[in-house]
C-alpha cells in the first residue's frame, strides 16, 4: 500500500494536508450567512480529511518508517520539524476517525437551525481542536509542541462553554481552564529542562537520554504532572467529570475519545527519549494507573448524571491504560521482553479501543439526553422501544467498555491479564500479578455501572414525561454510532488482525526484531479468542432457533409485568438508577457516599415528600477542594496585579522581556 501510494504522492504529505483540511473545516461557516450550510460544509470537509488521512496514516503505519518535514518558521528556536513515525501514525488514526464522525454527528445533533448562536463557534473550534491534535502528534520541536498544545487546550475550552449562558457550564469551563494551565505550566518546566539537557528545542531521538541523571527524574515528574492532568490520571482528574458532562456530546466524545489520549501520547513520547528507565518509573505509573482505574469506576457506579458516569469511566479506562504502560516500563527495566510486549500491546490496543467505544457512548448519550431533555438517569427509562437502533448500537458500546467477549474491550484487557500472569514464574516481578484481581474487581464494577446506565436509560418504562415519547435519531447521528459499533465488533471477533495496527507503533520501546519474534505466538492465542467468538455466535444461533421452534408450538400471550398480584403497577414502582447502585456504593463507603436526604414520615397517611440523593466524592471534597481554597487565600496578593487595564498588562510583558534580555547578557 505504501509503495503504491508512494508512486503517486507521499502519504505523510497527505496526512499533513488532511490535518490542514480539518483545521479549516469550520472557517467557511463563519462567512456564510445562511445557517446550516457552513456546518454541512464542515462535515463534508472533515469526512474528506478522514478519507485522505486514514489511508495515508495506515500506509505510514504499516511502512514502519518515519517521514520528516521541516516547517520554515522564522522563530529563533531551531528548526521546526514535523515527523510521522509509527507512534504518531497510530495516534493519528483516532484523531481523523473520531474527528470526522463527530463532525457528521454534529449536523444532526447540534443543528444550526436550533443552535444558531453557538453553532458557528462550535464548528470552527471543533475543526481547530482536531487539527491541533493532529499537529501535536507530528510535532518534533518542543516549542511548536507547546503551541499546538495550547491551541488544543483553548479550543477545547471554547467547545466546553458552548452553552455559556448556563452557570454550571461556565464553572466547568473555568475549572478546566485552571487545570489545563496548571498542566501546561508543568510542561513548560519539562520542555525547558529537556532543552537545557539537549541544547535545542528539538525533541531528542528515541533512547538518547539517560534516565539515571537526577534531572531526568525531575523532567519525567513534571511531564507526568502536565500530561497526566490532560489525561485525567488521578488525582489530577478534578476538571474532567464536569467538563465532559457540560460540553455538547460530540465535544465530550472527541475530548474523552481522543484529547485525553494526547496526554497519554505525551507520556509515551517523553518516555521514549530515555534509556535505562528505572523500575521506579514503572511502579509510579502502575500505582497511579490502578488507583485511577479503581477509584474512577467506583465513582462512576455512584453517579446519577448520565454523562458524568461516562466521564468517570474514562478515568477508569485511562487508569487501565496507564497501568498497562507501567507494566511495559517494568518489563523494559527488567529486560523482560514478554512482559513489555504484552503490556505495551495492551496499552496501545486499549487506547485504540477506548477511542472507538467512548465516542459511541457519548454520541448515544447525546441522542438520549436530547430525547428525554434531562441528564438525570433517574428520570429516564424505556427509551429502547422508541429508538431501537440507538439502543442496539449503545449496547455494543456498553458491552465493549465492560470488557466482555466477544467485543474489543475484552481483547486489550485479555492481553493485559496475559502480561500480568506471565510474570508468575519470574523471580522479581511476581507481585505484579496481584494487579489481576484488582482489574477483575474493576471489571465487575464496570458491569454494575454500565448495566445501571443502560437499564435506567433504555429498559423498563419511562420514569418522567420527558422520556415518554422518544423518536429515533436521524441518519447523520446514527451513522457514526453504527460505524463505531461495527469496528468494536470486528476488533473483538478478529483480534489477531486488529493487533497488527498496534505492532508497528511498539517500536518506540521494543525493537522491531523482538516484536517479530514474540508476536506470532500471541497472534495464535488471539486467534483462539476469535474462534471462541465465532463458536459463541454459532451456539447463540442454535439456541435461538431451537427456542423459536418451541415458541411456535405453544400459545403465546402478552400481559403486564408480574407484580406479585398487584395489578396497577406504575412506572414509579421501578428501581431507579440510584437504588440499583446503592448496595455497591455502600460497600465503598469510605471513598464515596450516596448522600441521601430522607424526609421524616409521620402519621397514617404521610404527605407527598421529596427524597434527594447525591453522590459525593470524598477525595475531591476533603483533599482537593480545601487545597484550592488554601491556594486561593495564599495567592490573593497576586490579584492586585490583575485589574483589567490592558496598557498595564502590556507593560508587564515589556518589562519581563527587558529583564530576561538583561539576564541573558
Amino acid at each position: 500500500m505504501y509503495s503504491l501510494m508512494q508512486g503517486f504522492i507521499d502519504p505523510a504529505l497527505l496526512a499533513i494536508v488532511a490535518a490542514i483540511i480539518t483545521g479549516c473545516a469550520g472557517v467557511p461557516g463563519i462567512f456564510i450567512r445562511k445557517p446550516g450550510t457552513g456546518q454541512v460544509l464542515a462535515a463534508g470537509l472533515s469526512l474528506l480529511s478522514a478519507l485522505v488521512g486514514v489511508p495515508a496514516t495506515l500506509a505510514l503505519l504499516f511502512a514502519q518508517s518515519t517521514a520528516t518535514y521541516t516547517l520554515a518558521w522564522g522563530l529563533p528556536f531551531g528548526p521546526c520539524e514535523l515527523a510521522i513515525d509509527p507512534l504518531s501514525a497510530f495516534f493519528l488514526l483516532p484523531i481523523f476517525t473520531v474527528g470526522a464522525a463527530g463532525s457528521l454527528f454534529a449536523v444532526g445533533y447540534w443543528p444550526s437551525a436550533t443552535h444558531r448562536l453557538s453553532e458557528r463557534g462550535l464548528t470552527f473550534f471543533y475543526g481547530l481542536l482536531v487539527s491541533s491534535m493532529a499537529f501535536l502528534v507530528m510535532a518534533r520541536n518542543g516549542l511548536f509542541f507547546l503551541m499546538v498544545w495550547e491551541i488544543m487546550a483553548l479550543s477545547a475550552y471554547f467547545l466546553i462553554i458552548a452553552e455559556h449562558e448556563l452557570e454550571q457550564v461556565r464553572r466547568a469551563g473555568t475549572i478546566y481552564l485552571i487545570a489545563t494551565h496548571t498542566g501546561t505550566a508543568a510542561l513548560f518546566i519539562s520542555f525547558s529542562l529537556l532543552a537545557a539537557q539537549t541544547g535545542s528545542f528539538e525533541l531528542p531521538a528515541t533512547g538518547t537520554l539517560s534516565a539515571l541523571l537526577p534531572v531526568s527524574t525531575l523532567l519525567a515528574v513534571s511531564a507526568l504532572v502536565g500530561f497526566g492532568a490532560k489525561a485525567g490520571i488521578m488525582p489530577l482528574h478534578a476538571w474532567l467529570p464536569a467538563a465532559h458532562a457540560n460540553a455538547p456530546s460530540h465535544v465530550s466524545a472527541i475530548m474523552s475519545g481522543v484529547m485525553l489520549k494526547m496526554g497519554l501520547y505525551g507520556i509515551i513520547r517523553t518516555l521514549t527519549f530515555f534509556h535505562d528507565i528505572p523500575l521506579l518509573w514503572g511502579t509510579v505509573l502502575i500505582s497511579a494507573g490502578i488507583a485511577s482505574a479503581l477509584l474512577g469506576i467506583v465513582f462512576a457506579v455512584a453517579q446519577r448524571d448520565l454523562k458524568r458516569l461516562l466521564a468517570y469511566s474514562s478515568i477508569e479506562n485511562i487508569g487501565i491504560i496507564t497501568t498497562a504502560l507501567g507494566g511495559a516500563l517494568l518489563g523494559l527495566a527488567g529486560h523482560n521482553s514478554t512482559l513489555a510486549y504484552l503490556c505495551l500491546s495492551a496499552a496501545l490496543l486499549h487506547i485504540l479501543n477506548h477511542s472507538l467505544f467512548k465516542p459511541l457512548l457519548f454520541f448515544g448519550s447525546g441522542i438520549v439526553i436530547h430525547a428525554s431533555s434531562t441528564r438525570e438517569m433517574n428520570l429516564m427509562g424505556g427509551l429502547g422501544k422508541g429508538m431501537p437502533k440507538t439502543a442496539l448500537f449503545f449496547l455494543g458500546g456498553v458491552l465493549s467498555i465492560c470488557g466482555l467477549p466477544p467485543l474489543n474491550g475484552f481483547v486489550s484487557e485479555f492481553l493485559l491479564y496475559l502480561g500480568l500472569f506471565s510474570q508468575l514464574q519470574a523471580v522479581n516481578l511476581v507481585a505484579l500479578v496481584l494487579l489481576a484481581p484488582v482489574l477483575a474487581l474493576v471489571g465487575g464494577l464496570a458491569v454494575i455501572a454500565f448495566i445501571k446506565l443502560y437499564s435506567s436509560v433504555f429498559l423498563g418504562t419511562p420514569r418522567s414525561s420527558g422520556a415518554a415519547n422518544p423518536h429515533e435519531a436521524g441518519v447523520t447521528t446514527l451513522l457514526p454510532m453504527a460505524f463505531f459499533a461495527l469496528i468494536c465488533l470486528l476488533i473483538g471477533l478478529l483480534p489477531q488482525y486488529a493487533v497488527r495496527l498496534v505492532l508497528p507503533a511498539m517500536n518506540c520501546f521494543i525493537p522491531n526484531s523482538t516484536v517479530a519474534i514474540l508476536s506470532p505466538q500471541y497472534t495464535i492465542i488471539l486467534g483462539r479468542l476469535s474462534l471462541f467468538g465465532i463458536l459463541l455466535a454459532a451456539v447463540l444461533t442454535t439456541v435461538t432457533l431451537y427456542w423459536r421452534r418451541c415458541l411456535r408450538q405453544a400459545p403465546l400471550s402478552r400481559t403486564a409485568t408480574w407484580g406479585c398480584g398487584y395489578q396497577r403497577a406504575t412506572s414509579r414502582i421501578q428501581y431507579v438508577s440510584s437504588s440499583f447502585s446503592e448496595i455497591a456504593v455502600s460497600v465503598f463507603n469510605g471513598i464515596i457516599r450516596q448522600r441521601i436526604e430522607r424526609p421524616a414520615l409521620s402519621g397514617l397517611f404521610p404527605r407527598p415528600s421529596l427524597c434527594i440523593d447525591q453522590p459525593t466524592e470524598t477525595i475531591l471534597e476533603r483533599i482537593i477542594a480545601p487545597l484550592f481554597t488554601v491556594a486561593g487565600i495564599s495567592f490573593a496578593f497576586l490579584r492586585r496585579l490583575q485589574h483589567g487595564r490592558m496598557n498595564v498588562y502590556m507593560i508587564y510583558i515589556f518589562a519581563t522581556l527587558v529583564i530576561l534580555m538583561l539576564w541573558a547578557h
Partner: protein
Amino acid sequence: MTNSIIHILLALSMPPLLLGVIAKTKASFAGRVGAPLLQPYYDILRLLQKGTVFSTTTTWLFRAGPIVALSTTAVAALLIPLGAHPAPISFQGDMILYAYLFALGRFFTMAAALDTGSSFEGMGSAREATYSCLAEPTLFFALITLSRLTGSYSLSAMLSSVTPATWLYAGASLLLLIGGMFIVLLVENCRIPFDDPNTHLELTMIHEVMVLDHSGPAFAIIQYAAALKLFVLGAFFVRLVFPFTSGNAFLDWGVFMICMLLLAVVIGTIESVMARLRLVRIPQLLVAATILAAFSTLLIIR
C-alpha cells in the same frame, strides 16, 4: 476425540441430575421421600412444551437474556477439564475467557430482568451485580495460585497438574483456596446460605427473582443454564479437591461423575443444615472469601 465427545455429552446431559441429587438430599434430611432424581429433566421437558407469556414492557433483550446465559455457559463448558480429562479446547489464558464468559451471561440475565420494569427484578439484579462483582477477585486469586503452583496458563494444564503431591507440597495454600472457591461456587449458583432457589418470597431472593417474568421454553433454558453453571463451576472445584488420575480413561470418567454427585450431596447437606444469611452479611462473607484466596496466593508467591 472420544474423550471430547464424552466431555460434550456429559456436559449436556448430566447437569440437571445434580439438581435432582441436591433436592433428594434435602428431602432425606427433612424425612421426606422427595421428588425422583430425574425430576429436573421432567421439569425442563415439560416447560419446553408450555406456552409463553411476554410482558408488554419488554423488548428483544428480555428474550435474549436466557439464550445468552445458556450459550455463554455452554461455551465455558468447553474450556473446563472434567476430572482427569483435559478440556476439548485449551489455550494460554483461557481461564480469563472462562471468567469473562460468565460475566457476559450475567450481563444479559440482569438486562433481561431490568427490561421488565419490575421493582423485584431490579432488586434481584442489583444484588446479583454487586455480589458477583465481589466474587470476581476470589476467582482470580485462585487462578493465580494455581497458575503459580503448576507453572501453566490454561485451565486444563493447571487443573491436570494438581496432583496429590501438590497437596503435600502446598496443602495449606490449597485448603485456603478451596475454602474461597467453595463460597464462590455457592454464591455464583445462588445456593444457601447466599440465596435460596426454592423460596417464594420475592423480596429476599437474588437469582430467582430476576427470572420471575420468564415462562415456558425460556424458563426451561434458564433452569438448564443454571444447572450447567453448577456443573461447570463444580467441575473446577471437584478437580481441586480430588486430584487423582487413574490412567484408565473410563475409570476416570466414572470417578469424575461420582465426585460431582458427591458435591451435589454436600451442597444439599449445607442447604439442609444452614439458614440463609441476612442480605447485609453477604458482602462481608464474600470479602472474607477474597481474603482467604488472597492468603493462599501470598503463601504461594511470598
